[in-house]
Every structure is written in structure tokens, then in C-alpha cells.
């Protein structure tokens, strides 16, 4: 009875009121749905966006010289940057160093300048340890030249003058083998320091080769799996996944055992009489590619398999029954339907391969290292985090550009499997 009454009541109510009630209910539902995604959004914000922003910031941050040497930077303001500066700059430098609250600040300054010009570390620390140095500017200059004659050379002062600002494009420039000369003009690095463009190209090249091999190996396998009855397919799928669950280091160690000069592969090949001399399969590009293909193969098989499962086999049969040869039917009817799987698998493998570090480090030679090796190097060994972040930024941008190209060429929504 009551329900009926309410129903009557609302039926009597003016239509705009009903609409408003509906809108309110709709908004509530939307908010509730949004609230459910909040944890994920917060998670993404904290684990993805914040680190990326911090990375970008570190790549352009340059606080060391500006913090430690404010007077010196001012004293060098009108300097022609050609010969050694006026004695006033020497006095300003000793005053700045003397005012540092902690020896750690001098160390940070020395490290920063040393990345700019090799040798600056001992130069700065030498004069810092000799403090206090007092007297007229000329006396101070004389004393500093006595401690280290390199103080009379312009390049060290140029490094200070160039880094007076809190922000710098130097790390990013260096990541593409450029630098600023004494006058601040952008120029190419000297030939013996032009490393990173080649390393970036190498990174892309290795990733591309690995992706192609993964596709060639995964395609027939995924096709075969998709045609098997579910029971057998599942068992075989476990075989695909088992190595996927094994630690990368274990798999690398296994490849070392297999591929070494007197390893299983070489002995097998020689036993069969296929080769006379053992092949060099390790600690070069071959070993890196073999191992990376093996590690990344499941990322190609899984998207391909899921797409192939959804392709009805009747299409192929229909094509053949309409007079196509089986091979033509396969390439003109079947393969085009698996393009989304190929695209997703290739993109996934390629992007994962770009960041590979352990495999090339352990199985590759000096010229098989990818960009992440150098990022790790600058982070852990050189402790030059500005450079590490700049290289990280380079890798990020290169990946995004590539992804953009893929979207444009593929003209398809990305489905990552």
C-alpha cells in the first residue's frame, strides 16, 4: 500500500524534481566509482609520477656552485672567460670556501666541478684544506697559485662561471653528446667523449633485434598452442611460464653454462661436425641477444596467444574452400587478424628490452652495454646523479617518441595484452 502511495506521490511531483533526484543519484554513483579508483590513482601518483618528476628535476638541478660560491660567481660576472680572472675572484673564492658550514659542502662542490672538468676535485679540496688564506687579493692569488698552479688556468674558472645558475641544461646536453663552450654556446663534445648517442642507438638496435627474434619464435608457437585442445595447451603454457617465474640471474647463469667455449652447445655442434672451432657465443652481442630473447619470449607469446585464441578457425577454412591456397589464406586472412597481438607483443618486448641491464652486463662485452648500464654506473659508481637522471630522461623521451610513432603508424588503440 505504502509503496503505491509513494509511487503516486512521485508521479504527481513536477518532472524537474524527478530529474534532479535522478541526477543526484547518478552523481553519487559516479563519486562512489571514483572513490574506488582513488587507491590506484594515489599509488600511481606516488610510484610513477612523483619519481618521474623528481628524475626530471634532478636532471636540470645545479645547486652546488650557486650555494657554495655566491661571491665568486658575482666576482666572475664581468670576466672575459679567456685568461685567468682578476685577483678579486681568488679572494672571493677563499672567502666562499671559508664560509662553508661543513666540509661535506666543499666535497659536493668539488664533485660537481670535477664532472665538468676532470681534476677540479683535487684542485678545490687542496685549497679548502689549506684554509684559512688571508691577505690582500694579490697575496691570496699568489698563495693559491703556490698551492696549485692550475689555479692560473682559465678552464677551471670557466667551470665555476658556467655553473653559477641553479638550473642547468648541461646534463641533458651531455646525454646527447653536446656541451656549452666557455662562452656558453652549444657545441659538440670532443670526439673522444661522444659516447651516448651511439649507446642510445645501440640500445635501440639490440632491442629491435631481440623483438624480431621473439616474434619469429613466438608466432608459430603461439599459433600451434591456439590450435591445440585446451588440456594440452595448458600443459604447454606452463612450460612457457616456468622459465618466466625463474630468477633472471639463474637463467643467465644457465646460459653461461650452455654457451661457453666448452659448453653443451659448442660441444654438440662440434660433435655433429657442423663447426671445426668452438663458436664465440658468450660475452659478445650473440650471447646478449640469445639470453634476452629467451627471457622476453613469454611477453610475446602471451599477447599473441590471447589474440589467436579469438580468431575463429572457420575463417581460414572458408578462405581455403573459396579457392585460396593454404599459404595465401594464412597470410591474407589469418595473419592480419593477429596484428593487434603482434603490435602489443612487439611493443611490450621492445620497451622491456630498452631497459635491460643485468643481461648485457653479465653476458656482453664492453661494446654491448645498453643505456641502463651507464645510468647504473653514474648512479652507483660515479655518484653523478644529475648525469644519471639526464640519461634516464633521454631513455624516457626516446621511448615516448617511439610509442607515439607506433600509435601514428599503427593507427590503432594500444592493447598491451
Amino acid at each position, binding site marked *: 500500500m505504502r509503496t503505491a502511495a509513494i509511487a503516486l506521490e512521485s508521479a504527481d511531483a513536477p518532472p524537474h524534481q524527478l530529474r534532479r533526484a535522478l541526477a543526484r543519484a547518478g552523481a553519487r554513483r559516479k563519486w562512489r566509482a571514483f572513490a574506488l579508483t582513488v587507491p590506484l590513482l594515489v599509488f600511481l601518483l606516488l610510484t610513477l609520477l612523483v619519481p618521474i618528476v623528481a628524475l626530471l628535476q634532478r636532471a636540470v638541478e645545479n645547486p652546488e656552485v650557486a650555494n657554495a660560491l655566491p661571491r665568486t660567481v658575482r666576482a666572475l660576472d664581468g670576466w672575459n672567460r679567456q685568461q685567468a680572472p682578476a685577483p678579486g675572484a681568488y679572494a672571493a673564492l677563499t672567502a666562499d670556501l671559508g664560509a662553508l658550514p661543513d666540509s*661535506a659542502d666543499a666535497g659536493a662542490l668539488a664533485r660537481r666541478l670535477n664532472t665538468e672538468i676532470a681534476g677540479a676535485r683535487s684542485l678545490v679540496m687542496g685549497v679548502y684544506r689549506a684554509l684559512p688564506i688571508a691577505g690582500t687579493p694579490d697575496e691570496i692569488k699568489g698563495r693559491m697559485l703556490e698551492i696549485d698552479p692550475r689555479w692560473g688556468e682559465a678552464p677551471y674558472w670557466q667551470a665555476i662561471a658556467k655553473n653559477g645558475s641553479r638550473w642547468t641544461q648541461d646534463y641533458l646536453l651531455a646525454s646527447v653528446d653536446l656541451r656549452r663552450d666557455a662562452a656558453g654556446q652549444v657545441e659538440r663534445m670532443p670526439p673522444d667523449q661522444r659516447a651516448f648517442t651511439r649507446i642510445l642507438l645501440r640500445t635501440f638496435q639490440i632491442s629491435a633485434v631481440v623483438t624480431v627474434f621473439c616474434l619469429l619464435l613466438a608466432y608459430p608457437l603461439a599459433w600451434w598452442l591456439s590450435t591445440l585442445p585446451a588440456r594440452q595447451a595448458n600443459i604447454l603454457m606452463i612450460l612457457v611460464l616456468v622459465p618466466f617465474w625463474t630468477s633472471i640471474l639463474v637463467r643467465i647463469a644457465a646460459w653461461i653454462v650452455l654457451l661457453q667455449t666448452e659448453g653443451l652447445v659448442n660441444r654438440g655442434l662440434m660433435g655433429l661436425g657442423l663447426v671445426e672451432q668452438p663458436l664465440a657465443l658468450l660475452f659478445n652481442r650473440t650471447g646478449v641477444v640469445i639470453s634476452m630473447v629467451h627471457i622476453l619470449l613469454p611477453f610475446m607469446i602471451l599477447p599473441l596467444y590471447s589474440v589467436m585464441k579469438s580468431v575463429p578457425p572457420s575463417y581460414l577454412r572458408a578462405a581455403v574452400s573459396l579457392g585460396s591456397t593454404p599459404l595465401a589464406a594464412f597470410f591474407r586472412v589469418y595473419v592480419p587478424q593477429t596484428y593487434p597481438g603482434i603490435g602489443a607483443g612487439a611493443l611490450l618486448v621492445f620497451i622491456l628490452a630498452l631497459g635491460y641491464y643485468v643481461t648485457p652486463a653479465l653476458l656482453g662485452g*664492453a661494446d654491448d652495454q645498453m643505456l641502463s648500464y651507464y645510468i647504473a654506473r653514474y648512479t652507483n659508481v660515479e655518484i653523478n646523479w644529475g648525469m644519471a637522471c639526464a640519461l634516464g630522461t633521454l631513455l624516457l623521451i626516446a621511448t615516448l617518441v617511439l610509442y607515439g610513432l607506433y600509435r601514428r603508424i599503427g593507427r590503432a588503440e594500444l592493447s598491451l595484452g
Partner: protein
Amino acid sequence: MKKSLVACMIAAGLALPALAQQQITVVNFGGANANAQKKAYYEPYEKTGTKVIPVEYNGEQAKIKAMVETKKVTWDVVEVESPDALRGCDEGLFEKLDYSKIGNKADFLPAAVTDCGVGVFVWSTVMAYNGDKLKTAPTTWADFWDTKKIPGKRGMRKGARYNLEFALMADGVKPADVYKVLATKDGADRTFKKLTELKPHIQWWEAGAQPPQFLVAGDVVLSTVYNGRIDAANREGRNLKIFWPGGIYDLDYWVIPKGAPNKEASLKFIQYAMQADAQAVYARNIAYGPTNTKALAKLDKKVLDDLPTSQANAKEALQFNVGFWTDQGEALEKRFATWATQ
């Protein structure tokens, strides 16, 4: 009933820190060296009542820097390589050491005594070969480059450090002049040119455990290698031989990260480990030279023959120039990376 249980738990919680044994975390590079340190230092020292927790790392200074900067230091004593000891000291990552609590400075090698780091052992990067496989043993560093005289691949560490020095020595530079030459532009060009000669024959290694494996497997005929790794392989019955002249010796240091929780206990541990007796036990377990010079007298000839600090082995050796590499290392390593791509 419930209340008394809570009270009990609080009491237990308060009492725990007092009951808990004092402990310090000592960080090493793992492997055979860690085992030797365990036998010589950690285990005997634990008998004095302080628990030693060994942790392995790969020398990543970034970890220490992150700990010190965020003021969450969990490591007490850390083994670091010499450039890191110097650089970290300059940059305020490590505590300054009070040698009155460590021992008599005069007993230690001069290089072992630095502001923030005390040298624990001397190790050397040397040339080695497999005594069972190689017919003609090398007699100079030029032989390392001579692929006609000794055909086969050469193992070298992936990176510029040590390789540049070896290249110059192979090119005829005397050990005493190596760093003088390397510091000049022409000298650097010369060493990279010399490396280029050998490039097609080099098999690069990354981890110290790799070169002995290469030699045993026959992948390379000659290799640069850390001398302790050869010793460890020979203890397992291999017949690997070291060519000592031109070896580059260096020290590893113990440092205390700034703000480490148990500074006093750490100093006591270091004091124990720097004693001649403990250092002699260490040298018997791995062929790295003691930094307490008094330990040498406690070792017999068989042990001494394998140490980089023994007179015969150190005669024509080269001391690693820490100052040079902290200054020039980053630029030279980058040049090496460029060279490798060419």
C-alpha cells in the same frame, strides 16, 4: 587478567633492548673474501659478546649516500674501495676516525691510515694464466699484447681502471712513470691506441669471479684478475699461476657511515681486526696482504709467497694512484665507453 597480560607485554618490551645483545652490521663484498673475514674477524670477535651481522653489497656508494642523506643509517662498518673512501670522506659520507681507539698508526702501512677509512687488506690486480694449459709462460706485460707469441683470447675487466695502466706498461712505460704519462693528453691517446691493438682479442669480465672461470674453462689464455680469486681457485685444486711484475696493488678500507648507530662498538671491532694476530689469520685464509705490518712476521713462507705485499711480489708492482683516479676517473671511463663503441 587481560590487564596484567598487557602490563607483562609492556614490561617485556622495555626489557628487550637491555637483554638484546649488542650487534653491529659489517658490510663486505661477498665471496671468498667475505668467508676469510668471517673466519678471521667476525667469528672470533663475536666471542667478546658483540654479534656481527655480515651484509654483502656490490660497492654501490649510492646506497650509503642515500642512507646518510635520509639519516637512516643501518650499516655500521662498510668495506669500500680506495677512491670511494677518499671521495666519501671529502663529501661527508663517513665519520672521521679516532686512531687512538684503533691502534698504533706506526704499525700500519702508511697507505692504510686515512682520515675516514682504515685500510684492511692489500689486494692486487695481476696477470694470470692456467699452468695446466699454457706452454709458454708470459715474461712481460708486452706478452699480454703479443697474440703471436701466446695465441688466444685475453680476459680484461670491463672499464678503464687498471687496463689503461696495463696498456702503458705493455707499451714499455716503467711502472714508476705510468701515472705521469697517463696524466698527459698524449699519454691518454697512447694508452687507448695500445688498447685498440688488442681489442679484437679481449673477452671482457664484469665480476671478479669470472676470470678464474675463463682460465679454467680455456676461454682465455691470459687474464687480468684480482689475486685473491686465483688463490681461491687454487685452493679448489686448480693450477692457476700469477705473473706478479706490473701488478697494480691497492687497499680496501673500512669506513663508518656518518650517523651510524653503533659508532663505539664499530671502533672496537675495527680495533680488534687491525691487530696483527687477527690479520695473520685473515691472510692465511685468503691471499690478501695484511695492513698491520707486524702480521707478516707471523706468517710462514708458503703463505707469504702468494701475498701481494711480500717482498718478491711487490718489487715491480705499481701502487694504484687513488688521487689520479678520483680526479680523472669519470672522464676516462666515459672515454673508455666511447672507445668501446668505435
